């Protein structure tokens, strides 16, 4: 029996194992050192300019830089008192949970008053975690089903990616740090698909996120040793192309033999075929792959904090190299019962989040919130340090949502959701504020971001009732 040999990336990884181990020991976390050099995006700028000439400038700042949008989802709601700032507008003080963001206070806004009514029970009863997750970027109500006819809505990141994704090598990037599936049912009659996906390519098909840093890296920058990546990538594209021709026809032939219900699955397959073809086509237009000057990371780190850091790093690298402008990162599916022994919390997160106002458990929730925030702050700091060629930071030219579809994990509320909007959107967002919006759909924020990504014509998403004016 042949065993899967070590892939080239793993081999090169082993050469650097000791180095990365030391990094871990020092608590740096990620095993790729991200060099702080200017972002580079010659290929995409061409594309962006071409788009502008055609009268559809998408995902570009006024200074001609790429405008990026990312969403990071943290689970189980937030410790309310510690989350919300005091004051209002530009005169505000960060709460305890956001202390790690102190240095970046002027690069972000805390937005209050956003709701996800479609995540509330309605007639569907329990299942707030599944709904929190599924509704977060769709603004839509998840059909309560364990498997048949899974349906929620296309998520805002995918809506935008379907419009402006052609400007970059990858139309979007979906990442996750939640890679172990619990057995049994997920949440009160909801399919696990709702819990482990925040990006939905269509109302029926989740855009499954990638948890393995090595595979994310290889997707972005090619496989193998740094000097071989470009060649490997080209060769792979050639092979994929030849495979696609055959399987497309094969799928169509197959469709004729199968029943109606199977068509949806085959359509998923054909959608994939089309997307990969487009991606290959784009890759040819964009020329050589960018070189991130970094080693291929290992697989999934055992340490959760390190896993988060490396996924954030990859996201930063993707933005820096303009490999994509749209990304989502699911830090953990809502309802996760992950324990945090690394910060002295052996209990599960979900267990703690139902604290019933017990101060001890509430404090643990606060510590977990803080832990997540520290890693997010590290990410923003990184984006702040990378400069675009217009002299602004990548953070300035980005719009980053950090939030959760559960507001208070203890009571499963879905109004006044904990949401941070980081970055200045290339100068179109008024960062440095605590905005208390009047109660309104979170989806309104999505429309405001879609405007900036070049989709002012997007009339609605999910339960949106208009645009969020004051951002």
């Amino acid at each position, binding site marked *: 029996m042949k065993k899967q040999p070590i892939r080239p990336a793993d081999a090169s990884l082993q050469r650097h194992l000791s180095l990365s181990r030391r990094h871990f020991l020092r608590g740096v976390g990620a095993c790729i050192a991200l060099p702080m050099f200017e972002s580079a995006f010659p290929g995409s700028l061409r594309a962006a300019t071409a788009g502008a000439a055609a009268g559809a400038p998408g995902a570009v700042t006024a200074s001609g830089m790429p405008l990026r949008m990312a969403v990071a989802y943290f689970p189980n709601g937030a410790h309310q008192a510690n989350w919300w700032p005091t004051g209002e507008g530009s005169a505000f003080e960060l709460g305890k949970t956001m202390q790690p963001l102190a240095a970046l206070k002027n690069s972000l806004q805390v937005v209050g008053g956003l709701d996800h009514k479609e995540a509330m029970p309605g007639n569907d009863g329990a299942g707030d975690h599944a709904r929190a997750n599924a509704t977060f970027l769709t603004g839509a109500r998840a059909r309560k089903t*364990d498997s*048949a006819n899974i349906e929620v809505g296309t998520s805002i990141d995918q809506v935008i990616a379907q419009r402006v994704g052609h400007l970059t090598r990858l139309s979007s990037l979906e990442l996750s740090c939640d890679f172990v*599936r619990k057995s049994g049912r997920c949440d009160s009659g909801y399919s*696990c698909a709702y819990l482990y996906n925040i990006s939905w*390519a269509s109302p029926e098909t989740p855009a499954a996120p990638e948890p393995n840093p090595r595979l994310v890296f290889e997707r972005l920058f090619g496989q193998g040793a740094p000097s071989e990546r470009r060649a490997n990538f080209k060769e792979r594209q050639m092979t994929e192309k030849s495979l696609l021709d*055959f*399987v497309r026809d094969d799928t169509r032939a*197959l469709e004729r033999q199968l029943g109606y219900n199977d068509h949806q699955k085959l359509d*998923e397959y054909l959608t994939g075929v089309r997307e990969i073809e487009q991606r290959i086509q784009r890759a040819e237009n964009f020329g050589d792959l960018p070189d991130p000057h970094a080693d291929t990371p290992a697989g999934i780190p055992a340490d959760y904090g390190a896993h988060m850091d490396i996924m954030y790093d990859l996201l930063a690298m993707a933005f820096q190299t303009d490999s994509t402008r749209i990304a989502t990162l699911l830090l953990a599916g809502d309802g996760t019962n992950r324990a945090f022994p690394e910060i002295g919390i052996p209990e599960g997160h979900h267990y703690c989040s139902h604290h019933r106002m017990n101060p001890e458990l509430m404090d643990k929730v606060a510590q977990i919130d803080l832990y997540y925030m520290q890693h997010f702050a590290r990410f923003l700091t990184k984006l702040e340090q990378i400069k675009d060629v217009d002299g602004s930071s990548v953070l300035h030219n980005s719009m980053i949502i950090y939030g959760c579809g559960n507001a208070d994990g203890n009571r499963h509320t879905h109004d006044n959701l904990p949401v941070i909007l980081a970055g200045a959107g290339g100068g179109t967002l008024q960062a440095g504020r605590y905005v208390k919006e009047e109660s309104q759909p979170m989806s309104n924020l999505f429309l405001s971001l879609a405007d900036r990504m070049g989709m002012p014509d997007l009339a609605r998403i999910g339960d949106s009732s208009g645009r969020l004016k004051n951002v």
Partner: protein
Amino acid sequence: MPISPLLSRLRRVLGLNLAALFVCAGAAQLRADSSQVAATFHRDIQPMLENYCYDCHGDGSRKGKVAFDELSDADLQAKPDLWMAVLKNVRAGLMPQGEGARPSAEEIARLADWIKYQALGLDAANADPGRVTVRRLNRIEYHNTIHDLMGFDFNSEAEFPPDDTGHGFDNIGDALSISPLLLEKYLESAEFIANSAIPKVSRVLATRTATGKDFLKDDGSHGPDLMPVGKPAHVSHTYTVADTEDYHVVAELQVRGSFDFDPNHCNLILTVDGEPRHQEEVIWSESKTLKIDEKVHLAAGDHVVAFEMQPLEPIKTPVQLPFQRGGGQRAGAAQKEKPADKPTDKDKPAAPAADVPPVADVVAAVVAAADAPAASKPGPAGAPADAAKAAPDPAAAPDAAVDPAVPASLKVAPVAVRTAARLDLRIVSVQINGPAAEKYWIPPENHSRFFPNGAAPAEPVARVAYAREVLRDFATKAFRRPVDDAKLDQLVGIAKRTYEQPGKTFEEGFAKAAMVVLASPRFLFRVEPVAAGTPVGASAPVDEYALASRLSYLLWSTMPDDELFRAAAAGRLRSTQAAQVARMLKDPKAQAFVKNFTGQWLEARDVEFLPINPVAVLGLTGRKANAPGVDFDGVMRRAMRTEVEMDFDYMMKEDRSVLELIDSNYTFLNEKLAAHYGITGVSGDSFRRVELPPDSPRGGVLTSGAVLVVTSNPTRTSPVKRGLFVLDNILGIPPPPPPPDIPALEEAKKGIDGHEPTLRELLSAHRSSPLCSSCHSRMDPLGLAFENFNAMGMWRDTDAKQPITAAGQLVTGEAFANVRELKHIITHERRLDYYRCLTEKLMTYALGRGLEYYDVATVDQIVARLDQEQGKFSVLLDGVIQSAAFQRQRNAPSAAVADTSGRTHGTNAALSASNDSR
């Protein structure tokens, strides 16, 4: 039912297939006969409902928004969800509630029959097989299928994202989506696997490969995987060659060092038949590969290749050891003061003995890190104590041969040094290659799997014919059904275009076509074409190839083997199905069923990763917290999983009663797990069946470590989760989900009777709230019965310093004093609930879809047979395999889809209302 006899007669007359069409048409008419439904309702059912149900669901009461007296005749057939809920609740004894009169068994049977055959319009003899959405291979099935098809272990768990699950299983067609990202991975994997598994040439140099674990010590035992460089070693392996010729011995070894410098080094000597062939010095390196290639002439026959490691004196570092040879101290040697100056019994030179502990353990000298004080005073030259400090390594006795002039008493073997540093040598592989002459070449590994007739002919027409032959075989296996000529033409074309290119081999052409096969939806999905001529909405048996796949993915989680293929091709699989199933269960591949089914039904998979904190579980503080003395490591977690799997496997292989999964006087343990359970008399790592004493609380999966752990929180037990687990996975009567706004329990937390409240007391306070009590009175007593087991599955007598009371009462009235009595109740009074639950779980797993209202008659039949046969497992498995749902498929038209999707939605909620407590 007047129509049934007619149909069975029709079937006899017309033959199976044709009859099937009529039957389905008949079923549709049956459903439409609403006047009969109404008549039987008013005559048989309504009086019963008035009698038992109207207190809450009639006469103005609408508990749970259900009022039976508001049903119109037209409603009777339009509310499958309602009737399913009635059926479930009445049969499980959950309704009617309260002290009032309860329906008799005869009444319940009459109600059940009316619901099944009138309200739901089912036809027991000709059940609707339902629809199964085409199933994508999940990660496990993909791995296994590639393994069987390609002879290659592909790490699908690392390369593919996790599969979404539905109904608690990861093989549900509707939940297994295929995103662009996943398709991209499938394309990449197709290329990677084809390139890795398919040989590129037809003949290669013969190689005989041994890996590190094949090398044995002189006493015949396996050498360690990592051999410490500071320790002498001799390991060998015997090869056989057929011809007297020149060969190459090619060895690859890895030097693996800690990050810190390790001063040990050694001579590595490769010998062939005792004769040294290669020697080199191995010094510290974090990671280095040694490659050795030596030409040797060998006679036909056996030959021994051996490695000898001879440690050398440690390399001088800023701090060095006194080193004595022949009475003199080496110049410039500095001495480390502290540890070496403190004589301990370890400092005594150990007498050479056959059985010595590893060098590192007998050595006293310790070299400090590089920043240790360099100002150590030199030791007195030749002082006896110094000789002692040098701690001769008795195992290094062979060293005597190096310098026979030195008296034995003064001989000092090279010293192994114990530091935080490590340096090891690992044998990766050792090959004997050759002979080099082409006439000796052989087909490469895996060649015959794809090219059974050897190398392809050179002549172009014959070459194409051969390509066609091997590709037909391959594609048929990969698609798990015959490949049509048009598709085969395409594949041959792809192969030909490649192998005709200069420098490309026939095998490379085949590999190119194989990539296409592996990327095809026909490989990635389990395609089950609807039999030609099946009218829309009707059902027909799945063809024999589909049946072969249904059986093999059910029992093996992989593709059919040759025997199944042959039977399907000959059209005799259905008729020999029972023998095939028996054969399949005996095959080691059936472990996949045991693992994947128990892993998900009983959630035993999760014991391997769910967070558990032994210190918190045991309530340890202070010093004890640093050394809890309880292993809850990966080995323990896997042992727990093994126990459950072996329990199920034994029941399955011996065809015992499924009741034994709940209550038995035996279980499967090894020493480690037995000790964890407090069971004595089990020694060694291997698992075996252990008879339990009559009063043992163990035996059965409910009191297995795995289930007790997966139903706990990381720091404490969760009676709610445990109770829910029993309701959900054993009795099949999950309570409705909790209300969205959970009330605070602060009053209860303040303390009860002046002491810290036990979990039981807290939960009891919880149940006093009417909002909570209706469900928690079902869950909590069940869960509290297991309170004698902590969150790691260990026995305990107290919780929060209060004695544990496991006694309780089921909501259906049965009282128990402890967990043994609870198991007895489940396997006696509530056995039908358990049979039904297990049948539903197995059917879900086997069918790859959730159960629907139209499956209820099938489930009932299996349950009835199971009960007649005292729960024999084969009755259950046969029942599922022979069910219409497994054997047949519905030609689902768009109209029927619209019809069922609405029902499906609600029915699911009623059938499998689940929980919210992850």
